[in-house]
């Protein structure tokens, strides 16, 4: 009985010693291919949609269009005047300062969609404004 126990203990010790002698598996560093991150611009310009935004925001009630001058008799920028502004200035003027706060959360025109426009919509609106001064022909079928 005792000899059996001794045999079992020695066998277990032998097996454990074999496992403990086995080398640790080598850590292989995964090869990460360095690929250039491709940014796909999904923002698509469609004049009709941009025109709808302009229409819904009723921009042209104050920024008169068409107009040959850049400012009207009140000194406000006409639509042509907006078109001749630098794009960054339009963003700042229109979408950041939001017309003296009129279109901000607490402004009188807080229900207007201006605050909820996506970056893509803002870009397209700016292109629409700029295009209005570029004499781009409007083709019919």
């Amino acid at each position: 009985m005792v000899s059996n126990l001794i045999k079992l203990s020695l066998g277990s010790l032998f097996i454990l010693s074999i496992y403990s002698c086995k080398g640790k598996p080598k850590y292989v560093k995964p090869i990460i291919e360095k690929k250039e991150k491709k940014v796909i611009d999904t923002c698509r310009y469609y004049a009709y949609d941009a025109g709808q935004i302009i229409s819904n925001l009723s921009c042209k009630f104050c920024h008169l269009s068409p107009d040959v001058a850049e400012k009207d008799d009140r000194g406000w920028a006409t639509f042509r005047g907006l078109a001749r502004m630098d794009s960054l200035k339009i963003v700042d003027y229109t979408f950041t300062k939001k017309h003296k706060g009129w279109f901000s959360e607490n402004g009188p025109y807080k229900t207007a969609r201006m605050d909820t426009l996506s970056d893509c919509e803002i870009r397209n609106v700016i292109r629409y404004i700029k295009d209005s001064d570029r004499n781009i022909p409007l083709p019919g079928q």
Partner: protein
Amino acid sequence: MIVNLIIMYANLIDVFKTNISMLQNQPLSGGIVAKNLRISDNGSGELTLYGDFNITLKVLDLTTDGAPSLNSLMTFTQQVITSKLRGGGYKGGISYFKYDSSKKAFDLNKNQTYSIRYSFNFSVNVIQIKMLNELKGNDFVLAVVDSIGYQFTDQQGKRHYSGGLTNGMGGPAVISYDVWKRYKYIGVHEFFHTLGLVDIEDNSKKNRLMYHLGNNTGHSISDAERGDMMQFIMRNIKDMTKSTYTNLNNNTVKLLGNFLNSPTNGFKFNQAKFR
């Protein structure tokens, strides 16, 4: 810069002429002439604009061999424009200045959000002119040419020939006589570009007049488009407080000349007729 100054002076001269015409009680002229303008405020954020409007579109035949079907095409175009403008239009959510009914003026110190109902009566005239000197600075014009070489690319990247071209909002329009004979609505389509509408390319909107990729299934105008045209026609709502109104001098003759002679547009026409 110099061109801008010239245009500004031309515009000022036009304003003086209009004012003198009004003082002398002479008939006003131009693409848009309006009388009996008035505003009604319902006190609950809705303004209704009233007025009697004359819209005139002058057609200039610049084809080499003449255009025998021109009269019937012009009659058709006049009828369609009239029917599309009938009933006025509506625009909601307009951020503007508060209207003071007692003073019949807008208060530039107070803001108000309005719905605007356009209740305009329209009389539309599509008339042919024989000579270039019959064209004035604030007229609308549709020049008819032999052909147009200009091609455009749609959203899917497909190239298309143009049957008509319009030089931006308020600008002159040019159409190919052959295309006009085949597609009678193109005269209206181009004129509505002049009145501020843009092209539609959605396949789901083939029933719309402003769809421009061919095979239209209809020729409808949406309420939003009608509202936009009304807004173009009465571009400065403040002018509603005057009793009469004409559209801005857009220097039509000069614009048409530049547009016709721009090589990128590829217009073929009888040069001798444009003098």
